[in-house]
């Protein structure tokens, strides 16, 4: 167990150290989310009615959740690359805890997600977002965000090993997750959607998580959103972590 812990940290460190040296990844974590915030705030912001909130307040929790969900992309790309470049073989030939390869990878995502969420919050504060709740609430929101991102890292870990190339991992992940993030309360109130989409949006984990964030950061009525979001996150982990591990065993054992 101690071995699993230290090996996980070594692998997580490896994934973080290499990040600044892959400029395209760093851009994905920093510049891209800022760009989206600015586009939504200033291009769509004027046209979208968000009763009770300014669009900046409405937008930031939504766009942060979307951004965090995609944070696991690095895991999909990285695992795919490791498999094809033989690094997984190297790891498996070492006397290390085998689970550490996946655990370290997803743990590194938590750090990068935290970084990218911080950048987004700062950007938000500059364009007019503000916290309407207490510090503990705001921190709880941050924790929920990281938990949600962690859950999606396992989804991406699975997808990354399911497909044959890094490019395919990219597009499959995008096609699977992008619509999910849009058919939710992230960018527009779900009440404005046609009834079929609205029915989907209301049970979508993104909607629950975004609404939970809004209650933790803006003081919106919480309902069951917070518990719903936590349950969703754990459910995703319970389903996708074993899938990813099984896939890892299969992919590596050939």
């Amino acid at each position, binding site marked *: 167990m101690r*071995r699993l812990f*230290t*090996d996980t940290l*070594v692998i997580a*460190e*490896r994934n973080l*150290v*290499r*990040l600044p*040296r*892959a400029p395209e990844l760093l851009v994905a974590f920093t510049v891209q989310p800022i760009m989206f915030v600015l586009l939504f705030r200033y291009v769509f912001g004027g046209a979208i009615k968000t009763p009770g909130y300014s669009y900046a307040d409405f937008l930031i929790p939504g766009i942060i959740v979307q951004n965090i969900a995609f944070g696991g992309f690095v895991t999909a790309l990285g695992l795919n690359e490791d498999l094809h*470049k*033989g*690094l997984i*073989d*190297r*790891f*498996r*030939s*070492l*006397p*290390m805890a085998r689970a550490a390869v996946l655990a370290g990878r997803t743990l590194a995502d938590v750090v990068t997600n935290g970084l990218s969420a911080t950048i987004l919050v700062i950007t938000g504060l500059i364009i007019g977002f503000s916290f309407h709740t207490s510090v503990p609430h705001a921190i709880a929101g941050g924790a929920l965000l990281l938990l949600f991102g962690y859950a999606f890292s396992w989804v991406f870990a699975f997808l990354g090993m399911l497909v044959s190339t890094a490019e395919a991992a990219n597009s499959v992940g995008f096609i699977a997750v992008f619509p999910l993030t849009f058919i939710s309360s992230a960018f527009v109130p779900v009440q404005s959607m046609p009834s079929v989409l609205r029915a989907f949006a209301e049970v979508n984990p993104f909607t629950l998580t975004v609404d939970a964030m809004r209650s933790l950061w803006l003081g919106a009525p919480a309902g069951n959103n917070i518990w719903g979001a936590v349950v969703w996150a754990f459910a995703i982990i319970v389903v996708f972590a074993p899938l990813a591990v099984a896939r890892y065993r299969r992919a*590596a*054992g*050939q």
Partner: protein
Amino acid sequence: MVARLRPMSHDPSTTADGRSALRPQGNGSREAAVSASGLVKSYGSVKALVGVDLEVAHGTVMGLLGPNGAGKTTIVRILTTLLKPDAGTARVAGLDVVADAAVLRERIGLAGQYAAVDENLTGLENLTMVGRLYGMARADAKRRGNELLERFDLLDAAGRAAKTYSGGMRRRLDLAAALVANPPILFLDEPTTGLDPRSRLQLWETIEGLVADGTTVLLTTQYLDEADRLATEISVIDHGRVIAGGTPDELKDRVGGERLEIQLDDASRAEAAAQALASMADEAPGIGGDLVTVGVHRRGGAIVEAVRRLDEAGIGVEDIALRRPTLDDVFLALTGHAAEGDDEDDREAA
């Protein structure tokens, strides 16, 4: 092939393919560094290994020689615990590759054609990471990494990301990573594939240095000159089985010792030349245009004898040379023939 289901025996006569030459010389009490028996592995309907027996003595170099897809990499993956065999057993460093896999991983090093290093980490970071995954403290791992970088002439590039390395440097870094824990047994999967001749030679010298220090090496290669240069023993692998084995010299002898190649002035005299030389060899000389080939038993005096005979018969010689068979000849002879032919050859050799 019947013999594959039987356990390894020290009696050479029990293996149908006559691989007696693979047995370590003497010292029967000490377990071999690597021993495998009856390894079988399939991927779906593709049979990668159909029954492989191997034995590698301590301190020697075993070369697995064979074309792409012969099963060499599968053997290495099984011996390094990356893959479980469908049937058969293998022991490395006295440990079972399946039952004792976790302990075994501390005693072996694996490097290969993919040069499995993290391109975004520096040379030192790569080695430090591997050291820490072997359970070393960070400072120890770093010290060991620096030692290896110095030994492999990579110290100048220690702080550079591995993606800036040349192919040869990357391969050396990969090999260094395999040596972090000082493993007594090293597995090299096509260590020089894709390298330029200079890097290749460098890597050969490095491997020879490791062997001189007592490391046991099992390497796979498609290159006959590589096996010839590095290997103490060679196992020729084809279609998932060992089709022949022995020292490089033994394998060459199996193809029929040395050959005298005589190029004639006049192709029309080839028959006459073959007749004049016939008593020098067991088999009838081969004729191809103006080239006559004679298998000879003894090197000494063969050229002089041949020239004298041809001179007496009044046949002009353009060129004459004694050629040792290369492993290319061995390989073609072994894989080009049907299996029953191989067995015939093997029994003769044994």
